[in-house]
């Protein structure tokens, strides 16, 4: 009996240590990734990197200014397309919907979220690139924008649902119509959650590479307007990383650092602002 109990105690101690190890390993990986990127990318990050264009293949030096601007344009386009539609869709689900239709929409949104981003790229390709017969910023923006919609819908809906019913009733009782109640009381009350959701949404698509590979494609120069292929930060990281040039590898690290910093800062800021919010 005593032996058996000792064994059980040992198993208890051992198994929980193992689980702790698993947790530590996972957490450690993040710090490892961060550390390595800062180590390798930091040394290649320079003002020239941020402001110059790429140099011809094989030559050293140059930067990724066009990729940074290109990513900015793509995100702008994607947000202009995806956020309003996603936001209003979320308003519908939280404020108007019945039972069956919202359920179907929610379920489909979650499924759409799980579709590999490269398939979204194919979709944007068939809709824009195929008829236009060339790559363009517009196609890339559309691919990313479509990816933003389901996320925006769900996060807006969830934020609106946290607003207590009595607040809505208070506004209705004063003679406000339903849409006025939503616009002037419910949405402002939920604005932190909504903005957080949007920031996370943008951060999520900012790192997407696959859908851009054959929509916005790439560009070694500036890409004026919306109709031409454009360089973007994630695609540059990819292209440079798989190239045979050491100098490009360094630039890939730098670009990766910039990208990761933006994504992580957005995520950390968004998550902290939500968790620090006090309930009224």
């Amino acid at each position: 009996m005593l032996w058996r109990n000792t064994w059980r105690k040992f198993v208890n101690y051992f198994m929980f240590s193992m689980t702790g190890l698993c947790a530590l390993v996972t957490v450690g990986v993040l710090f490892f990734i961060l550390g390595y990127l800062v180590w390798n990318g930091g040394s290649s990050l320079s003002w020239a990197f941020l402001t110059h264009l790429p140099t011809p293949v094989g030559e050293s030096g140059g930067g990724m200014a066009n990729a940074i601007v290109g990513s900015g344009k793509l995100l702008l386009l994607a947000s202009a397309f995806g956020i309003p539609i996603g936001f209003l869709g979320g308003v519908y689900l939280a404020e108007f919907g019945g039972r069956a239709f919202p359920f179907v929409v929610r379920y489909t949104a979650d499924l759409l979220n799980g579709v590999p981003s490269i398939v979204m790229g194919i979709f944007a390709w068939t809709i824009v690139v195929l008829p236009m017969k060339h790559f363009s910023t517009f196609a890339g923006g559309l691919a990313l924008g479509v990816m933003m919609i389901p996320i925006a819908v769900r996060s807006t809906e969830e934020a609106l649902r946290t607003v207590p019913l009595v607040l809505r009733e208070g506004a209705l009782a004063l003679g406000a119509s339903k849409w006025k109640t939503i616009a002037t009381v419910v949405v402002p009350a939920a604005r932190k959650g909504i903005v957080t959701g949007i920031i996370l949404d943008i951060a999520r698509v900012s790192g997407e590479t696959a859908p851009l590979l054959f929509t916005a494609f790439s560009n070694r120069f500036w890409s004026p307007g919306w109709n031409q292929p454009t360089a973007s930060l994630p695609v540059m990281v990819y292209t440079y990383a798989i190239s045979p040039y050491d100098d490009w590898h360094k630039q890939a690290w730098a670009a990766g650092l910039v990208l990761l910093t933006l994504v992580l800062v957005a995520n950390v800021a968004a998550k902290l602002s939500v968790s620090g919010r006090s309930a009224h």
Partner: protein
Amino acid sequence: MAADDVKLRVSGLDFYYGPKQTLFGVNLQILTNRITALIGPSGCGKSTFLRTLNRMYETVPHARAEGEVLFDNEDLLAMDPVALRRRVGMVFQRPNPFPKSIFDNIAYGLRVNGSHGGAALKEKVEKSLRRAALWDEVKDQLHKSAYALSGGQQQRLCIARALAVDPEVLLLDEPCSALDPIATAKIEELLYSLQDQCTLIIVTHNMQQAARVADFTGFFLLGKLIEYNKTEIIFKTPAKKETEDYITGRFG
């Protein structure tokens, strides 16, 4: 309008949540500029009844009211609900100020109904806060968040907010249940003072409150209005046995 006129005439009101009926043939007449209290044990339907008077139940799917409710001889159940709610205001059980400043809370009803700000708006806000006996306490902090106020002050804020649109009828759903005795006393005083400008209907769990404050009292039980009369009569010489049992604490 003379004090003995009927403001709201309710005839044969039934209420259903889906297939379940929760109000049965309620008949009563609310007199203008009087305070009417509705009492009864939990779940007896008094809050449900109150909420039919400003059609607040319409936010709940499958809820419906049948019968006739006349508001100054207009069909209340057929009116535009938005227009109705400008004339029939409501104060809720728990204070529910908007996450805005004190000023913006009071101004909300006015703005939503078309007011454009400026001096006229400021005047109205001040007037409402005075009517709610809150002006002196907040006049220097109108732009602070409403949540900075205490519970009692927040409830008076909600009353001021409801008063700002000059409703003819004010519905109060257990307005003091979340407040301490001192805050409660202040609000009861306030209700007295509002009487000649407004018809007040108050649902309360607290029989002493009804006895203190109301001119008329209605006793609800299991969805039926058992008895309705002058408060004095209800509390001293009730006609029905159920009323007497409730008043004397034999049940509920």
